[in-house]
């Protein structure tokens, strides 16, 4: 990269211009990654935080708690299997009102206080401690700290039930709604009144060893999915992730086109210079290495700057926008952008290798 690096040193203004465009694309890509991750977090962070490996839904429920109703027989079938820990989960979206009339939406999770979810989840500190004493109480996700306080009574709309707020924990959200934990019995009473008959929404499993879950599903009329697969049942999750993936895909294509266009124009402008390199004895491989190396340096610098600015902006966004960045997301988006850029330049490579060194001479014909 003898010539490429020196070109970068001397023709700064030219490279700053295209570098800025690439940095802006990297910035946009980082922001989109943050938003995509934030949306995902907002959709399933509560479910992701639960210490379970699989969820059992009613057959045809499409991983949705709202569409699934299971009974004690399913709990028994799965619970009798060696290597399988089970605990029932009830989940419904409810609307509640505080004493001063403030309305809050809740993803209400009913869990068995003696089951592994209550004793080992992030909500353990509250549900586990209090055990059965939590009856008719709510442990709310931290997101609601600004809206309600411990000791407030929340009235669940559509029922006469008043539930006291007994504490806060990291509960996360599900379907973009803050999670509220209560006991399964309370949840059943809210949803089914006095006719619950042990019903719940899904069965949480922790599976160790080789267990034939498909066989259990056939016997119980259920569908068992791994926790990650259950994310798709969160309202809007699939549509949101598909939309964000599409936007990021387009951004990568745009990035490849921008780099390809720049590299093509740059190659055309350097035609005589490249011909001269070849006249001096440089092979096509040497010329391509030099040009691609130069582009790689430019891409890396632009992506690092754009990504850093994106991360910085993300920090100032606050809670108003669901924004979350992980090292993996930042790395993945940066690498994808760099690869797209290098692929975009491939189109111009052919032009580069086709340049004839004879053009350095004033040949008559």
């Amino acid at each position, binding site marked *: 990269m*003898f010539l490429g690096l020196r070109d970068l040193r001397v023709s700064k203004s030219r490279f700053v211009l295209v570098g800025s465009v690439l940095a802006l694309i990297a910035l946009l890509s980082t922001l989109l990654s943050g938003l995509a991750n934030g949306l995902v977090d907002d959709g399933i962070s509560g479910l992701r935080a639960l210490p379970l490996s699989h969820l059992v839904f009613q057959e045809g429920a499409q991983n949705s708690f709202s569409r699934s109703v299971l009974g004690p027989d399913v709990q028994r079938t799965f619970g009798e299997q060696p290597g399988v820990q089970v605990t029932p989960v009830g989940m419904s979206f409810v609307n509640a009102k505080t004493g001063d009339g403030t309305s809050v939406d809740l993803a209400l999770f009913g869990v068995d206080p003696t089951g592994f979810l209550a004793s080992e989840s992030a909500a353990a500190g509250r549900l586990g401690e209090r055990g059965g004493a939590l009856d008719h109480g709510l442990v709310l996700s931290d997101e609601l700290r600004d809206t309600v306080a411990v000791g407030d009574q929340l009235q669940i709309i559509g029922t006469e039930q008043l539930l006291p707020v007994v504490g806060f924990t990291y509960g996360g959200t599900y379907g973009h709604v803050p999670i509220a934990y209560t006991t399964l019995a309370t949840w059943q009473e809210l949803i089914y009144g006095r006719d619950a008959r042990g019903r719940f929404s899904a069965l949480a499993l922790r599976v160790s060893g080789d267990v034939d879950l498909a066989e259990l599903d056939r016997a119980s009329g259920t569908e068992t999915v791994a926790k990650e697969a259950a994310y798709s049942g969160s309202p809007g999750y699939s549509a949101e992730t598909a939309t964000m993936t599409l936007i990021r895909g387009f951004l990568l294509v745009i990035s490849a086109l921008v780099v390809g266009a720049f590299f093509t124009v740059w190659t055309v402008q350097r035609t005589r210079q490249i011909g001269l390199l070849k006249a001096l004895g440089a092979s096509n491989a040497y010329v391509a290495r030099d040009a691609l190396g130069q582009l790689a340096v430019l891409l890396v610098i632009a992506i690092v700057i754009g990504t850093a600015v994106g991360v910085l902006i993300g920090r100032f966004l606050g809670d108003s926008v669901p924004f979350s960045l992980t090292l993996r997301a930042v790395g993945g988006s940066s690498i994808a952008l760099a690869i797209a850029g290098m692929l975009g330049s491939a189109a111009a490579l052919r032009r580069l290798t086709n340049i004839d060194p004879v053009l350095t*001479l004033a040949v008559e014909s």
Partner: protein
Amino acid sequence: MTANEVALQLDHVTVRVRDGDESLTILDGVDLDARRGEMVTVTGRSGSGKSTLLAVAGLLRQPTSGDVIIDGQRASSLTARQRSRVRRDHVAFVHQFAQLFPSLRAIEQLELVAHIRGELDDRARRRARELLGELGLGDHLDRLPAQLSGGERQRVAIARALMAHPSVVLADEPTSALDPARARQVMEALADETRRREVATIVVIHDPTHLELADRNLELMDGRLHMAQLERA
């Protein structure tokens, strides 16, 4: 290799091109021997085929018929890759308007030649400094082309051409953009280096002044070389 040995030979070289429905003969059975330590000028009107002659001699273009022999290697018997290698190892060009790389300092213009060959080390850097020093550019090593005069640029181009120890130097109108005084300096530099380093130099030149600096002057007319032996000044 010794002085007076033929480094470049054009053996009945003919170049024809299509011009619409017609065939245009640019070079018509050209024969030329250039010996080590000899500078040959080729003059001719615009469009007479001078640069085509250089392109063929430098293995940048294949003739329609005939052959080019460089240091005993017949181009017609070589593959494209082998021709490129012969060009890289035996031939150097001094281009019209110098054609230096705008982003490289004078010393780097020469170092690039070594880098292309994978030979850029302290020895190569020392040689680059020495070559520029011998051509009167010792104080200009770190200057970019834009900071050099036309004559200085052309002398850097000559030094660059000599960097890889070529046996043949092909100069394409190296004085075309220079005033007479600078043009003479460049021609003198070319002639001196030709003899000192025992290379065969072909100089295509439009301006017929300073021809006495060459060992031979040829004129290209109607696709053929007409030889006019000159006495060395």
